[in-house]
């Protein structure tokens, strides 16, 4: 996972204490990622990485953890670059 990716997610997780690390497998929902926050996060990802996640990646599985979300972003980024 890109180190700056955690920093991108952090502002959207209001229940993650400032002094705590974001574990790659921590459930984002319980850290405060609700549906509106997920949209904001998606926009941040699009702006920073220049990728738009395809519809079929926008599942709860993708948004479950930082790791799963990163995998989706990274895969899409590689596909976009290859195309």
């Amino acid at each position, binding site marked *: 996972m890109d180190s700056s990716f955690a920093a991108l997610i952090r502002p959207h997780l209001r229940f993650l204490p400032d002094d705590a690390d974001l574990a790659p497998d921590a459930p984002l929902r319980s850290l405060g990622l609700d549906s509106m926050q997920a949209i904001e996060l998606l926009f941040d990802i699009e*702006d920073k990485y220049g990728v738009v996640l395809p519809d079929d990646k926008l599942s709860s599985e993708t948004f479950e953890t930082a790791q799963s979300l990163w995998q989706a972003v990274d895969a899409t980024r590689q596909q976009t670059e290859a195309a």
Partner: protein
Amino acid sequence: MSVPARHQVGPADSADPAGRVDLTNLANLVGALRAVIRESADATDRDAEFPVATLAALRRTSLFGLLVPAEYGGLGGSVRDMVWVSTELARDCTSAGMIFAMHCQQVAALTSYASPALRQALLPRIAHGEVYLASVTTDAGKGGHLLSAEQALAERGDRLRIDRTAPIVTGGAHADGFLITMQAPGAASAGEVSLVYADRAQLHTEVVGGWDTLGMRATESVPMRLTGEVPADQVVGRHGGFADIAIQSFAPLAHLGWSACWLGTASGALARTVTMLRSREERGRRDLTSELFLTRLSRIRQRLDLTNAVIQHAVDTFLSGMDPTTPRQQLLLNTVKLTASEQCLAAVDELVELVGLRHGYQRQSPLRLERALRDLRAAPLNYANDRLHFADGRLVLLDPEVRLA
């Protein structure tokens, strides 16, 4: 663009698995065609001109042969494929989608009802993109009412004499062949209607007026007079038997095809709008967390999901081989048309409300909402909803048990 999620061939071609459509290929063909449509859509709408570049691409891509069975060189697609392609094409231009869908409606009638000789002569030409079919079913006195005709075919030995004036013939100036409804020779009433095929070369065709409308401008649906003679075996189905074709094939495919186009138009409008709303520039201007904004957006999407669900259900029912002449089947197919024409128009109207004057009402806006709104305004009029409700009311009385299809 995504590949259609599932595919089910119709009862007619289910025995021929080799004839199934390659969906990836279909998606590629549609993608190429949409690029052509996008390039010309503004000009054809502005000038109320038939999209000749799109017509050429439809011929070239073999999509005009979508419903032609594989044994005649066609793609062997089903009504489900027709619905999917129509929806996709109409995302960029309702007229282009309608031209395609209505051609497919004619092909389906020929495939099911033409004599073996006519099928053999015509279907391969359609598959090769040589024949774009127009439908001549309107009469000045009766509008779009399918089941009667004012002018009669005359029998001359083994030939049929055609003299037909029609107030609206979509693409008539560009069609290569015409499926024409007329009174059967010697008909006792206007209700004895025959369907007859005529090649452009067999007719003298005359465009007798113009087409300058609020929307659907690129369909160039002109009034025409067609005169000529064709061999008697170019009657499609039996003489006076058009009512069967109408109820089994013409009307179901019209309602499904039109509705697919309207859904495509509204989906394209919503897609362009959401893409714009999500853009970084626009996000800075607008509060995307606004309850009013999100609620409106949701209602618009709800209309499209509802329409899609009704269309897909009707396609399933139609392909299941259920008798389309029963009241519940006819009611369902009419509901498709009524629902799509109302919901898609309302969806785009609400989109205009959502984004306001600049993005929603200006002709130059890349969202093209004003064009979608003009095109969709024709939907409730294209075989008028009032008339359909009038027919539905009678069908409701025929089904006292209320068995829903």
